[in-house]
């Protein structure tokens, strides 16, 4: 049986794990790194760079270096998140044919799935090099709050990278699986996952090798990157008021600032203050200008206080959704690089009235959990079962644009639910079923997953026909929706996951094109 790997495909860094001698282990790259930057770049001579080499050259080649593409994947180009990224990121983002954001570097264009695929392929390569055998299947993690389209786009990325994606699982659930390996007994645990680009909060219950996701909440556009950005804004503002130079249009200067901001942020998790020194950052008529300043932990905390506060709202929501109180939680586990910040740990500790659990490495635990799930699925040597939930409500739009929820968020999958609907006009012969995902009471504020028409309804006064709309989610998260007219027995249905940002033909084409980047394992 071929090996299965678990990949934590992060906004900033990615990590891969597999089973060795019955234990899940994080696989280091040949350079000894356990995490690989999720960065992809093209050099002037069209060479593809991934991971550390790509990151190292980011400053001198900012416009052709893609980072944080996870924040774009599966979103619509006109979404607020993508629009914000247009301003923040030095690489070019434009609108693709499916209203999806696409990325252009060195005159080549990429879909977000392709960029993620480059990183996934690198993780696959690292694993193959280490294990000395080929790897063809993987479990990939995504933020719990990713919607259907984002998950599908991630699945596509796996396929492009030449991986059989066994399952897309939620990062906090993966963290819980890894945590649960080392802990027996019945426990309620809270997982606070603040990563590079996303924030997830989940509450899980476990006992006897079963991990049940009770509730999740979060924000897919909030993470360490935003902390860095606050520091950058602060530095840019200071520089402007001191020297009268606006650095925002200077891609190279901004990349240097971003780098130094991230470093300063990490140092301030250990120390009270740090010096920021960027010589020759800009120049004007009077010669070169340098940036030198002190940044203290207090200053940083003041800059990001509201972001940390914002995460606590999701925490509260999640605890409420679980029907629990903070004191009911047995253990709190913090995951994700940004959770290392003392202020974040303090806030979490204060909310739950207990210190977060220290025994797990926040950068590695998610990949380990993904490997465990992979192993549990394919060979059953790992006797664990993950009872996962659907993170967002599913339903259809009704007259007046109202959103009628049919499957509530946090419902355990697999699940099916149905609900009766009727017509709004006399002798209405067809209804349009538009499937949405989200929490807003107005359908259009949520994500449209797909639509279909049920025709041939026998003539009847309005409100008479009974149309049963059924939703079904299988254990891998694939949603299908059907509508049946009870009088005529007419039925129509769709499988919602068929809709993704890439068409099947486009995907096949990309997979073919990308086959040339496949590598053979050494040895």
């Amino acid at each position, binding site marked *: 049986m071929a090996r299965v790997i678990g990949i934590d495909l992060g906004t900033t860094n990615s990590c891969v794990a597999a089973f060795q001698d019955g234990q899940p282990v994080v696989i280091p790259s040949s350079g000894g790194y356990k995490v690989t930057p999720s960065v992809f770049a093209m050099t002037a001579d069209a060479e593809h760079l991934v991971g550390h080499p790509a990151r190292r050259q980011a400053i001198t080649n900012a416009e052709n270096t893609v980072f944080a593409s996870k924040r774009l994947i599966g979103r619509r180009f006109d979404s*607020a998140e993508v629009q914000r990224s247009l301003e923040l990121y030095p690489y070019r983002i434009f609108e693709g044919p499916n209203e999806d954001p696409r990325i252009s570097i060195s005159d080549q264009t990429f879909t977000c799935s392709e960029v993620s695929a480059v990183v996934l392929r690198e993780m696959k390569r690292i694993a193959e090099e280490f294990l000395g055998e080929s790897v063809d299947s993987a479990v990939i993690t995504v933020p719990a709050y990713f919607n259907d389209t984002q998950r599908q786009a991630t699945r596509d990325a796996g396929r492009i990278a030449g991986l059989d994606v066994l399952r897309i699982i939620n990062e906090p659930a993966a963290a819980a699986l890894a945590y649960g390996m080392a802990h027996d007994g019945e426990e309620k645990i809270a997982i606070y996952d603040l990563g590079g680009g996303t924030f997830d909060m989940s509450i899980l219950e476990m006992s006897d090798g079963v991990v049940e996701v009770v509730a999740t909440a979060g924000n897919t556009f909030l993470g360490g990157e935003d902390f860095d950005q606050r520091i950058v804004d602060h530095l840019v503002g200071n520089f402007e008021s001191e020297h009268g130079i606006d650095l925002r249009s200077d891609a190279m200067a901004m990349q240097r600032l971003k780098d130094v901001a991230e470093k300063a942020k990490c140092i301030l998790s250990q120390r009270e203050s740090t010096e920021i020194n960027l010589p020759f950052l800009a120049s004007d008529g009077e010669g070169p200008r340098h940036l030198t300043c002190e940044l203290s932990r207090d200053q940083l905390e003041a800059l990001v206080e509201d972001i940390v506060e914002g995460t606590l709202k999701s925490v509260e929501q999640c605890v*409420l959704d679980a029907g629990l109180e903070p004191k009911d939680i047995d253990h709190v586990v913090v995951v994700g690089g940004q959770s290392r910040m003392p202020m974040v740990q303090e806030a979490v500790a204060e909310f739950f009235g207990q210190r977060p659990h220290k025994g797990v490495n926040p950068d590695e635990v998610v990949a380990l959990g993904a490997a465990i799930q992979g192993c549990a699925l394919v060979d059953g040597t790992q006797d664990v079962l993950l009872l996962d939930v659907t993170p967002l409500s599913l339903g*259809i739009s009704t007259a*007046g644009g109202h959103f009628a929820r*049919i499957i509530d968020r946090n419902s355990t999958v*697999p699940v099916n639910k149905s609900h009766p609907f009727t017509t709004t006009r006399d002798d209405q012969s067809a209804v349009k079923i538009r499937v949405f995902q989200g929490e807003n009471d107005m359908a259009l504020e949520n994500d449209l997953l797909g639509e279909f028409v049920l025709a041939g309804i026998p003539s009847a006064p309005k409100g008479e026909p009974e149309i049963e709309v059924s939703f079904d989610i299988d254990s891998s998260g694939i949603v299908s929706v059907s509508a049946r007219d009870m009088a005529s027995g007419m039925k129509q249905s769709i499988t919602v996951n068929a809709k993704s940002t890439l068409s099947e033909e486009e995907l096949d084409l990309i997979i073919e094109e990308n086959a040339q980047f496949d590598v053979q394992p050494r040895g």
Partner: protein
Amino acid sequence: MARRNDAESGAGRVLRLAPAFDSSRLKLTAEEGFLLSRVDGQTPVDLLAEMAGMEFARASARFSDWLELGLLEEVACASDLETEPGAAPREGPEAVTVAFSVDESQLDPQLDIDIATQRRILAFESQLAGSYHERLGVEPGADDRAIKKAYFALSREFHPDRFFRCELGPYANRLSSIFKHILEAYEALSVPRPAAGKASETSQPGPLPETDAGPSALEREARPDLEKLERLSQRTSQSLPPGLRRERQQKAQAFDEASRESANQGRLREAVTSLRLAIQFDPDNVGYRRRLAKLKARVLEVQVLNQLEDSRHYGAMSEVELDRTMKSLEQLLENCPKDPELNERAALVALARDDTQRARIHAETAVEGSPEKARFHTLLGRVHGLNGHAGHARREFELALACDPGDKEARSELDGLLRRHGLSMPGGARG
């Protein structure tokens, strides 16, 4: 056991309400309604007839009709029940080890699933028609912990992931159906969670879009379809034993009180959550549902207002967002078209959309509503300025300064205006 002799007339059989059946369209007499409401999946039909004070033959005919309609289902193994006349629903441990005969022709050695497991699946499947407690194999009075333990154990056995990518033939659908039944029983028996509530609570059976003539979101929220609510409430939780029902009603009352308190203190979200819990415990209470609809309308209103709170955002909003914001505002303005604050926001949104004509209308309405507020004059002045009416603009800025001489924005706008038009300020006005 005289009852046993009645087997032919079906006297000893036990019925339960079919889970997914919508009984709201049935036209029932009061007597029939009462009879139906007594069906609990435990009491034999002849006792039900006795309770309803109906002749057995008549009651039996009704039950047959309802069985045919699919409203009722026969509870499996009814003939094994040893209920004494007048006895309360069965207590104590279940007779779990009922020997089920498995249809051997269903067993298939070609599949990736051993014969013993196939037998187990078939046997368990034939047991699914029983009560929720029977499905999970727990005693009727089992606590949350025991229920969860049973659910976890059965999940380990039957969750489709345990047979990931195995060649399962017809067993794939069986497993998935078994797990969904286990899940249904677990959700019904465990303490309800706010977010795991029934969809019917947030979305009543509603019309599908074809025409957009439905009421606005706010109206819909504020005026719930009471008739529908009442119909809905008829079909819920009739099958609970009276003791449990009372207990649940008391819990519901506690949640309702908590909700009122939260609402009084302005914590609306909390109030909604508590009220939802109340409804979960007592779904028959139309009053709770009415109050929930009202509360949600208030939440929506506050939400929209909060969204609009920070006017600085308008400049940073995408066009789509601006359109949405404008729509929300229009909805709110329908109810109070002269509200100065709302008009101010509408003017700002219109400005962000470069719709200066519309901005002028809203800004003027705001000024009319509260002519004493400096910032409304300033806003109107800015709009006039953008429309090229420097004179009007100047007057509004001066009015703003008359209302509040310390209004910095009006001051700087006025300075800018005068500078652009090469005018100078009247002496001493600055500072």
